[in-house]
């Protein structure tokens, strides 16, 4: 390969999305936001335990990336995973019921917020150790190449994980063996409470693969269309057998790191500015209205549907029974 392609701050080409696409992105992002708000509420009521990391603000990343893939491509991520699961098409009731630790959850209540999987939807977790999913995703891509399958693994990691040693071990092997993996760095600018400026000697995270010849791009992660467009380039690069690709998706989380984080390490103004000027859902809403695809009433209709789905999920998650005590001892080993 010649000099690795390096791009910064991609500005997307004119909006190529069809009105159906835009409506889908709007609905998918709204579902994630409403779902997460509801999860926050259930957490506040003591219905969800332990750690709960919300995805509010980052919705354009997963929805845009998912739009850039085709059915069958794999997805793996860290513990801020609810949005990824919904974007993969996992059932919102099953996800919410896992958050409440119930039998109807994707892991029958044995995984929780950070550990959920759906083989059927090609979602491979949901991993609780920062950076741990990166070699795992690289291994999923190794599997695709080993079997000669035309698939790509989207491996998400945060700006905190990007300093983990195992990430570079993975970059090296993925580049060496030309594995079809897109490393999607969701740079929400805070590794828990430590800002990128304070945790990364080189804050341009899209350059982190340079030593391995992995092309990288920085993308506006609040713009679902920009994400999709960059995602398509990355996925194409992988499918053509050129090895891994890095996308740094600049995004922002509106909530704290987890539910018990008051987020005092940033100013209110910073958050308000992001919400008012860069909200990913408002952006698509504006596109829909400006292009007269839908009026306020039409949007309200979608809002209502989404709310109803989330309400049903929350109801299911509260009514599904707790796992049977006998479940304590199942799924430890596959019996031979």
């Amino acid at each position, binding site marked *: 390969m010649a000099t690795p392609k390096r791009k910064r701050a991609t500005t997307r080409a004119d909006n190529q999305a069809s009105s159906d696409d835009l409506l889908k992105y709007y609905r998918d992002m709204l579902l994630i936001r409403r779902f997460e708000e509801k999860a926050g509420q259930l957490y506040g009521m003591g219905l969800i335990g332990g750690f709960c990391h919300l995805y509010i603000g980052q919705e354009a990343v997963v929805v845009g990336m998912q739009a850039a893939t085709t059915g069958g491509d794999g997805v793996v991520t860290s513990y801020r995973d609810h949005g990824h699961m919904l974007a993969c098409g996992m059932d919102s009731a099953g996800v919410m019921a896992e958050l409440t630790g119930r039998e109807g959850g994707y892991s029958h209540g044995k995984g929780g917020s950070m550990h959920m999987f759906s083989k*059927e939807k090609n979602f491979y977790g949901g991993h609780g150790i920062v950076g741990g999913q990166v070699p795992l995703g690289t291994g999923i891509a190794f599997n695709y190449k080993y079997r000669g399958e035309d698939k790509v693994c989207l491996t998400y990691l945060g700006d905190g994980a990007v300093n983990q040693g195992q990430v570079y071990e993975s970059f090296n092997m993925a580049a060496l063996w030309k594995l079809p993996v897109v490393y999607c760095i969701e740079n929400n600018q805070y590794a828990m409470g430590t800002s990128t400026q304070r945790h990364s000697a080189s804050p341009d995270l899209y350059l982190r693969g340079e030593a391995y010849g992995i092309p990288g791009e920085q993308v506006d992660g609040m713009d679902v269309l920009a994400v999709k467009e960059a995602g398509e380039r990355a996925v194409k690069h992988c499918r053509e057998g050129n090895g891994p690709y890095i996308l740094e998706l600049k995004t922002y989380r509106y909530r704290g790191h987890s539910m*018990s984080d008051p987020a005092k390490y940033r100013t209110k103004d910073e958050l308000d500015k992001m919400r008012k000027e860069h909200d990913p859902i408002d952006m698509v809403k504006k596109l829909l209205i400006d292009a007269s695809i839908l009026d306020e009433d039409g949007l309200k209709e979608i809002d209502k549907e989404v709310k109803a789905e989330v309400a049903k999920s929350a109801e299911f998650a509260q009514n599904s029974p707790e796992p049977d005590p006998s479940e304590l001892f199942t799924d430890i080993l596959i019996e031979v």
Partner: protein
Amino acid sequence: MPIEVLMPALSPTMTEGTLAKWNVKEGDTVQSGDVLAEIETDKATMEVEAVDEGKIGKIVVDAGTENVAVNAVIAYILEEDEDASALDNVNPGEAKSAPAAAASEDKSSSSDNASSAPAASAAPVKASGAIERTDKEPRAMSEMNKTRDEKSYTKFKTLTVREALRDAMAEEMRSDENVFVMGEEVAQYQGAYKVTQGLLDEFGDRRVVDTPITEYGFTGLGTGAAFMGLRPIVEFMTFNFAMQAIDHIINSASKTLYMSGGQLGCPIVFRGPNGAAARVGAQHSQCYASWYAHCPGLKVVAPYSAADAKGLLKAAIRDPNPVVFLENEILYGQSFEVPDDDDFVLPIGQAKIEREGTDVTIVAFSIMVGKALKAAEKLAEEGISAEVINLRTIRPLDVNTIVRSVMKTNRLVTCEEGWHFAGIGAEIASVIMEHAFDYLDAPVARVSGEDVPMPYAANLEVLALPQEQHIVDAAKAVCYR
């Protein structure tokens, strides 16, 4: 019905807090995401955001109120089509009982659960098929059940442990395309200890993969591939280096089946030399048997002979679970008789009685089996009949074989190269106390490595490692001789 805004918990342990400030007043219109109020606990201040949109109908708890219980109603939001009259019938009262607590109460009367809680089918949202339990029958289950007693074989050949391991891998790679081996120097170099000799020539570099010296990364990579149904054999040049990778062995490989509710198995073998080699010092001489044996979700195997090595490695490769396979460098060059049959597989979880005896049971694994057998010979010369058990598998431990033997001999000596504290001997002593306490005629004796990092000097190294004579002495002690 007006929407209740409840006092939220900031953590699962919070029971009450202070409502520090209202950011909205009655009559204000709010959207989801708007900050309604700030609450404080001893640890933090948090914002309460609106989840629903509407008009603030009534503020129930004033700003500055302390000790507001979690889940108490702090305000009401009126929906679009409601006016203040909707508030007439509401009664904030006491804090709602925490639904989570209610749910655990259900547990105690689980027989009522089915009737009181809506069944999944009656619930408005049907969980997708993915949540249903799936058939998780992997390949090779039928073959697994075909293990034969090794004594029933008639044809044998002499193999070193090294050759036996190589043959096991080669045979399994021939019969299953999903099996591949990866690790440092496994391909072109033919194995750092020549265990993978010849595999590259036969299977090519797609299936015999040289990795960079990055244990954490390639162990995670192998684990990810195993989640997808491949059957990686991950070779560690030695298990000392696997400490860099233990996060993926435990956190990823051993726990994911459980965390996924049975969806994602991990058919992987982690193998390589374990324990002390010779004169390589503290960082290269450690036994990890008790580390891995501690963890549910793993199987831990430690072969002694070439037959053990071949039969157990084949079983480990066919096993649908992660198997930690602890070899020993000093044994690699030793030769043993091995059944000459591609179908020779030994069951994981069964110990072998290497030598029958009546006076004392000696339990050992890996290289210590050889030392135990020699000790048994010496003991025989002194008129003590020792029974030697080769554990073969550490987890799951073959408790029955040990207990049966102790019920016969009434005395037990455990042997391991590793440290005694929380070691395998400690576990076996507990197991015997639980299952055969009344049969013991003496306290269980443990022979183990000394409680020191491995020294380099030849004389000190000998002193640090458990020797044949220690076993003889321990056996005599428990026999009061």
